């Protein structure tokens, strides 16, 4: 807001440093500088301009780090980052096409860019959600007032959760071959935050649907799917809890073993 270090041209330096060649996690301070920049200027264009001109196509590690950076900026940046993201869907897709199935990072890059595109498409269709899916009351209210739309919302959210789950599994599987592979593991940080945000949304939206709808049988398929996702998410968090790099950095959410009761209201003590 005031300080000299946050003037526009500096964002390209931060992007460059976040996507450096070294096989480490993108440094948080540089990613944070990008995020803070988008809020200070209420604009994401300089960020996208900077990341698109980086000469990273030659190097898998840099492409992968760019994807992590984009993911975190989409999550925590100013809402305009999502809008800028829609415009750059073709470019993000091209990152994934480039290195399909070659090198250690090939498959990861392919799936990650696929996921980001899916996330952006989701946000374009459902404007009520923010990048990290932080809970906002009004969204679940709109879902209830129009059950058909709510139904579709839940299906789309569950689809996104499935892709996220696949991606998380792939990352864990790839990283476990080489111990201490911080670069790959760091991709899990935004994924954990996102999957938990989606999970909380699904719980409260499903509860709202159950409370307002008369045709409870119609919601059965949604419920079955939710229960299945709950168990997979539980396993995913358990796997993440075993990775020291992650546990020192963030609190991994702990889900109950049994899926929560969907027939009660959100504020009930058994939540």
């Amino acid at each position, binding site marked *: 807001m005031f*300080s000299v270090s946050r003037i526009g041209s500096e964002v390209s330096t931060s992007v460059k440093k976040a996507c450096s060649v070294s096989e480490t996690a993108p440094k948080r301070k540089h990613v944070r500088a990008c*995020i*803070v920049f988008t809020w200070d200027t209420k604009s994401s264009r300089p960020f996208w301009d900077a990341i698109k001109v980086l000469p990273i196509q030659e190097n898998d590690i840099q492409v992968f780090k760019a994807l992590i950076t984009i993911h975190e900026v989409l999550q*925590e940046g100013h809402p305009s980052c999502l809008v800028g993201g829609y415009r750059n869907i073709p470019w993000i897709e091209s990152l994934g096409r480039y290195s399909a199935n070659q090198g250690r990072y090939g498959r990861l890059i392919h799936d990650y860019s696929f996921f980001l595109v899916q996330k952006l498409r989701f946000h374009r269709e459902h404007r009520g959600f923010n990048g990290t899916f932080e809970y906002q009351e009004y969204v679940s209210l709109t879902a209830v007032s129009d059950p058909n739309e709510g139904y579709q919302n839940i299906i789309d959210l569950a689809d996104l959760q499935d892709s996220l789950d696949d991606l998380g599994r792939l990352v864990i599987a790839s990283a476990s071959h080489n111990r201490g592979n911080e670069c790959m593991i760091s991709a899990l940080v935004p994924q954990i935050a996102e999957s938990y945000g989606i999970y909380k949304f699904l719980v409260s939206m499903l509860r709202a649907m159950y409370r307002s709808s008369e045709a409870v049988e119609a919601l059965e398929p949604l419920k079955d799917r939710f229960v299945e996702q709950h168990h997979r998410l539980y396993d995913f968090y358990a796997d993440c809890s075993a990775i020291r790099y992650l546990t020192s950095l963030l609190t991994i959410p702990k889900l109950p073993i049994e899926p929560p009761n969907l027939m009660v209201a959100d504020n009930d003590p058994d939540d």
Partner: protein
Amino acid sequence: MTTKSMLRSIKNVTNGYSSAQVMVRNATSNDASGPTVTQMADVANHTYDRGEFLEIMDIIDRRLNDKGKNWRHVAKSLTLLGYLVRYGSEDVVIWAKDNVYVVKTLREFQATDSMGQDQGGIVRVKARELTDLLADDERLRQEREAASRKSGHR
């Protein structure tokens, strides 16, 4: 007076900081201890002055965006800001809400000291607590009421 605090007092003069700003800089310095409650209460009193308020927030903003090496600046500014939203003027609350992303993005702050020890944890915890407080209007109102009863301010 240690060499470092001597250096700081020289910087205070050469960079032309106001007395309120010097107060904030001392409260959020790299010294191992502090900020003390007296220091924080002093700063809180000065946030009721419109001109000094902006000067104070300017320094806090800079301290919050400091590098990992100066993790004490960041940790102490979070402590101070947490105190100010409870005991300072209403303007602090408005400022903090407008700039909540500065605090929010610190929830993943990382820093290792020269011994290779992780020092970011304290910042991450403080940032998470402050973000939660700023998001909860009801709790913030209650805490401000309790604070004004305690300190006798308005």
